[in-house]
């Protein structure tokens, strides 16, 4: 034992200090397992059935809307000239954006050793995958001839045709496809130790068999852990650039065009910030409910939520900066079409949407400057919903830029049809159906990872001195 370190607690960075308190309620390893695993093993509560039935109903609306779309054609939507993209693309970008929080929490925060991520990463990753599933539906169904949508993939064919590699839509196919694949892998690899835990706790043969297959023979040996940690680290490394690339490329759908109001270089960073913003807001929305219902309050503490709210504040302000900068550049560029597009956004026929966006995305997060607000469950729940609404409207405002471009003769006004609305609502059915299944059958919090950041996991736990010194040792260990 070296000389006791005597750095006072007050001087230590908060994160280090708080790491010690990531899990509240005096839970030990067993308690953590119990808390997380129990919801998947207990008798299914009636409330779950009710929620699931509701979600399935909404999913039914989604399915029916899509079937009708395929039967009749994209004309059932409000699309027209000059607005060739409507709610389908708005929803696509909206869902992809929500999907961003997962990778950010899993990968970037992991690489930055932000241990508070462990309580929420599983949840956020699941959300990512389900959001990406919702997102991927839209570009598939929004095309005029759905039965040929697969032509967007570079498949060998008798026509000898490649897709057009200059098209941002094709880049989208690769970007979102990669993102979806890596996210699923990442999520699944993270799940393996916990699936093994469920297998070991299984009371029925069926459960043992299914979880046994899914856990790929995990026994928790040292060798398994070494490989697991390496694989996890590599996947985190692969995912990190994806956080930036996916929404960058989604933003290219707009930025690469010549449409005034779309053709701007700020789009990639602005889209990424917006995506993280909306993703975190969605995690907060869902987490606030889930920790209440499933009793995860000791694992997902107010400290976690506060940290997320800080990120919401940061990214919301970034997005606000981007809105302002767009206006500045539109004026500074001296391009009359560009300048008109932005003035028209704020004061034209869609001004209502623009100001909803500004209120929700720029003004509402500013409440998080106050600690009390950051730590108030009702406030954060309400604000996170506002942010979700605001971010949907951001995509709406961007897409609707089409309604007035170069030739005033072709200007129009887009109105969604009932089918636009039903399809959008229906996509929440898909999301919640998957989410409820996830909550019912899989551990919603990464058991192994949470244990890893508990004091008991520290090799020095229980051996050294107690009190303030322990913090110092911990710092040294890193």
């Amino acid at each position, binding site marked *: 034992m070296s000389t006791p370190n005597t750095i006072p607690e007050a001087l230590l960075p908060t994160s280090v200090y708080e790491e010690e308190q990531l899990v509240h309620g005096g839970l030990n390893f067993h308690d953590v397992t119990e808390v997380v695993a129990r919801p998947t093993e207990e008798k299914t509560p009636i409330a779950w059935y009710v929620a699931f039935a509701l979600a399935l109903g909404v999913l039914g609306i989604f399915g029916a809307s899509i079937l009708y779309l395929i039967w009749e054609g994209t004309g059932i939507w409000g699309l027209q000239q000059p607005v060739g993209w409507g709610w389908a693309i708005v929803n696509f970008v909206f869902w992809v954006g929500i999907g961003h929080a997962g990778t950010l929490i899993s990968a970037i925060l992991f690489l930055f050793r932000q241990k508070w991520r462990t309580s929420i990463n599983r949840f956020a990753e699941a959300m990512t995958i389900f959001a990406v599933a919702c997102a991927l539906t839209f570009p598939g169904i929004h095309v*005029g001839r759905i039965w040929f949508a697969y032509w967007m993939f570079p498949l060998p064919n008798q026509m000898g*045709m490649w897709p057009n590699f200059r098209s941002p839509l094709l880049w989208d196919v690769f970007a979102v496809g990669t993102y979806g694949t890596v996210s699923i892998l990442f999520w699944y690899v993270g799940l393996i130790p916990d699936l093994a835990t469920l297998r070991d706790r299984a009371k029925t043969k069926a459960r043992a068999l299914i979880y046994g297959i899914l856990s790929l023979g995990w026994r928790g040996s040292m060798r398994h852990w070494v490989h697991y940690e390496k694989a996890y680290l590599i996947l985190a490394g692969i995912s990190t650039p994806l956080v930036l690339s996916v929404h960058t490329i989604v933003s290219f759908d707009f930025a690469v065009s010549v449409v005034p109001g779309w053709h701007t270089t700020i789009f990639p960073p602005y889209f990424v910030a917006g995506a993280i913003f909306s993703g975190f807001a969605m995690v907060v929305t869902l987490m606030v409910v889930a920790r209440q219902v499933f009793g995860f309050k000791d694992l997902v503490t107010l400290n976690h939520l506060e940290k997320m709210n800080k990120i919401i504040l940061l990214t919301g302000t970034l997005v606000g900066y981007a809105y302002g900068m767009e206006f500045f550049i539109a004026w500074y560029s001296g391009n009359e079409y560009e300048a008109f597009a932005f003035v028209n956004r704020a004061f034209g026929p869609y001004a209502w949407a623009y100001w909803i966006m500004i209120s929700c995305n720029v003004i509402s997060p500013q409440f998080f400057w106050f600690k009390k607000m950051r730590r108030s469950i009702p406030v954060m729940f309400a604000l996170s919903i506002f942010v979700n609404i605001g971010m949907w409207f951001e995509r709406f405002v961007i897409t609707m830029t089409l309604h007035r471009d170069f030739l005033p003769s072709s200007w129009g006004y887009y109105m969604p049809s009932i089918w636009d609305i039903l399809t959008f609502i229906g996509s929440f059915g898909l999301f919640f159906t998957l989410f409820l299944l996830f909550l019912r059958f899989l551990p919603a919090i990464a058991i192994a990872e949470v244990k890893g950041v508990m004091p008991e996991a520290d090799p020095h736990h229980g051996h050294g001195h107690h009190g303030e010194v322990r913090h110092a040792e911990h710092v040294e260990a890193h």
Partner: protein
Amino acid sequence: MSQNHNENRSELLPIEENGKTYWRSLDHVAGTSEFRDFVAREFPEGASELNDPVSRRSFMSLMGASLALAGLGTGCVRRPEEKILPYVRRPEDLVPGLPQFYATTMAVSDMVTGLVVEAHEGRPTKIEGNRLHPASRGGACTFEQAAVLSLYDPDRTVRVFQDRVEKSWADFDAYLDGLLQKFRGNGGNGLVIVSESSASPTFARLRRQLTEALPQARFFQWEPVSNERVLAGTRLAFGQPLEPVYRLERADVIVAVDADLFGSGPFHLRYSRDWASRRAPDAPGGMNRLYAVEPVFTVTGASADHRLRVRSSQIGPFLRALAAELQGQGVAIPAGIAQAGQGAWQKFVQALARDLAAKRGRSLVAVGRFQAPEVQAIAWAINDALGNLGETVRFAQPADVPAIAPTEAIRQATALLDGGNVDTLVVLGGNPVYDAPADVPFAAAMQKAKNRIHLTQAPNETSALAQWVLPETHFLEEWGDAVALDGTWSLVQPLIRPIWDGRSKIELLARLAGSQQTKGYDLVRATFLENQGSEADWRKALHDGVVDGTSRRWVEATLDAGSAAGAAGRLAAPKDGLELVFLVDNKVYDGRFANNGWLQELPEPTTKLTWTNAALMGPALAEKLGVKSGEMVRLEVGGRSVDAGVWVQPGTADDTIAIALGYGRTFAGRVGNNRGFNVYPLRTAEGAWTATGASATKIAGTALLAATQDHHSMEGRPLVREANLRDYEQNPYFAREMVQHPPLVALWKQHEYTGQQWGMAIDLNSCVGCNGCMVACQAENNIPIVGPEQTRMGREMHWIRLDRYFASANAADPTDLTDAEVVFQPVTCMQCENAPCENVCPVAATVHSKDGGLNDMVYNRCIGTRYCSNNCPYKVRRFNFFDWHTKGTGTGGNPLTDVEKMKFNPDVTVRTRGVMEKCTYCVQRINAAKRDAKVSGLEKVPDGAITPACAQTCPTEAIVFGDVNDPNSRVSKLKKQPRNYEMLAEFNTKPRTSYLARIRNPNPELVS
């Protein structure tokens, strides 16, 4: 010349296989009384049920069909059954796959235009103007071009019906013989014939024959839109009815006084062309100057250098004030004409008078057919004093003018019918029940006739009151002849055997007249040989479509100054208060084309309204009435009232509401029923064009008006570039200098464009915005219609459109559109060399062709992401949101019948749902010309061998197409002109279509 070949081919017509006959064959299966009713109904396609999708009748018919499908054992999968019959003996000149062209003539009341019709395997598909015909000179207007759609209209009269029960011609002939026997006995007493007007010499001959055979029979010709006021005006001025024919190419100053020279009326295509020939700034003889004085915008007013808003009832005082000013300029106006005016227009009148006085013999004051004869007479006095008679206007003796003018004719016919002594009424074409003057109760009177016979192309409001409804042939199915305004004799020859076993007017008239000949061919040929020459001449006339040297001898007209002055004195002092102006519609004319989807969906040139008319009023009046566009207003005149939707139209005269005739039809068919508002109930014989003392009040309700353009300002963008002549002379390159941009560089290596490369130049100076190109494109390229609801959503499919922008004439307040200037700009795919649409398509469905450098659209490859359309700066791409050919209003949601399918141009793909489409520069024509050039051993396609449909039909030749790599081609020469500019070229799209800037030639006195 095509008759034999058509007869050979008629067996191949799929009439017997179409939906109708198919239903009828179920009769044996279903056998119910309802079903029999359905089959025998006058409107067998269920025209009246269309708006009610689950009526009992359509339910029964569906039930019948399902029953039959089950019982007839056709199985679950029905594949189209196609029989291919080879020719045993191939008709001469017919190569399957190659179109044939025949000359013919179409007459829309007195608008007679020579045409050349393209036919594919016996199906006419495309109508173009006949270069040899003086009214056309190669151009064709919207009515003529859209006629091909009416030919295949499933709502036509398809059988002979008596009291809505199907009969045959044999039944009718037996019936008619019975009647005629009686009439021959009593000299025709009790026989009344009401016919459409006709420009046919054969018709006139048979009419005379009829009057000789049955002297007691009464013959009336009624037409809601006619030149009766023009004839009355010349009678007042010159003592005899004369047909004025303008020579705009000779006029330096043209004053169109409530005259839509370019929009409607006989010779409007020719007038546009003659005017445009003097429109280029370097035109020989200098640029002409056009003044328009009118109550509501017409295409003529939109093309004018100066336009004055004048209420219709003020036109007379305006002319008298002009005469007074001219007197001041030393022009010898006869006494009693001039009357010094007062008011806002004085400055305009003074400047105009000075301009006219300086151009004696080279000016023209043209008054439209809607003004009172007295007003016309004043104008003739002015023209006479200016020495214009014989110079810029010539007079022709009208041939075969009925003794009674149409309005008087319908009045007399109605009075006779109302008297109850009419035994038999024969209505030859037309629709007097719908369009007779409001104070002439024709409909009520008609029902007092014992026997009522209506020969009609399609059942209409009049047929609904007739007992016998007879199918009339379309002009593409019949033999005929017609005389144009200047007397040119031309022939109507059929392109196809009558699809529905119809007879033409002359054939029925010949029967009534007891003629030996009853075949159209024999009748027309007999008239020809009698008047125009030999068998050889006949063959040549058939080939050319026109008879050489038949234009009328011009009449020397001498002004009867006293009569003209008397007329001027009789002119009633204009009353204050609201007045109503009735317009001839640019799309449905007087209502006869209401069931033509191409015309219905065409945007009206100045309002851009489709599928409807509207009460047009200026912004000030709208404010006074408290109404906005799309709200409803009740119009009242003389105790009659009509409710109509409001459209605020800049440039409308004060206290004037203008509304087009021809809408609100109730028996037009599935396309035309209940579109817009019927204003015939307000139109009296006296107030046929202008009704004073009207009132308008706002009422509850919304009119869903479908306009293709919602925004009317150019927002200060350099899209249509224009300058005054003087500024142009100082800086001819003004248009190119309007946009400054850095050098345009590309990121990657550009395509190389060698060999023949296609391009287009559109002269905004000569475009009058007539819409001719839009219908030409629609017919050539199989473009579907989408219906009013979809048009309101912005889903119309036109590949070429005419953008119309208003600019305020008020320099102080650019938002004040009380007085407005208008510009038109035809916009179609620019075929950009750097096409923004191409690189965004994920599946490479729109790509550049190396050969010709076109931006090609590969329909089969398109999956419909619509990204290309978003990225098109010109927004010229059109998307098939639905399967428009079955979903568009044209079919009421039913699949196309085989007859409707006959309209398609086989050289152009019919696009499916979910793909993007756009202008191709008529690539099918390019390829045909390249093939022909290759066959002829030419290395290159000669200049002028390719003419896209839009360019072909343009009456002013504003659109020129050709090889931009050939410095000697017409298009290259135009592109070298200083006026040439490319729209949005600063985005480096390198458009192949460029525009020639518009030059206005204003009177320097009126330029502030």
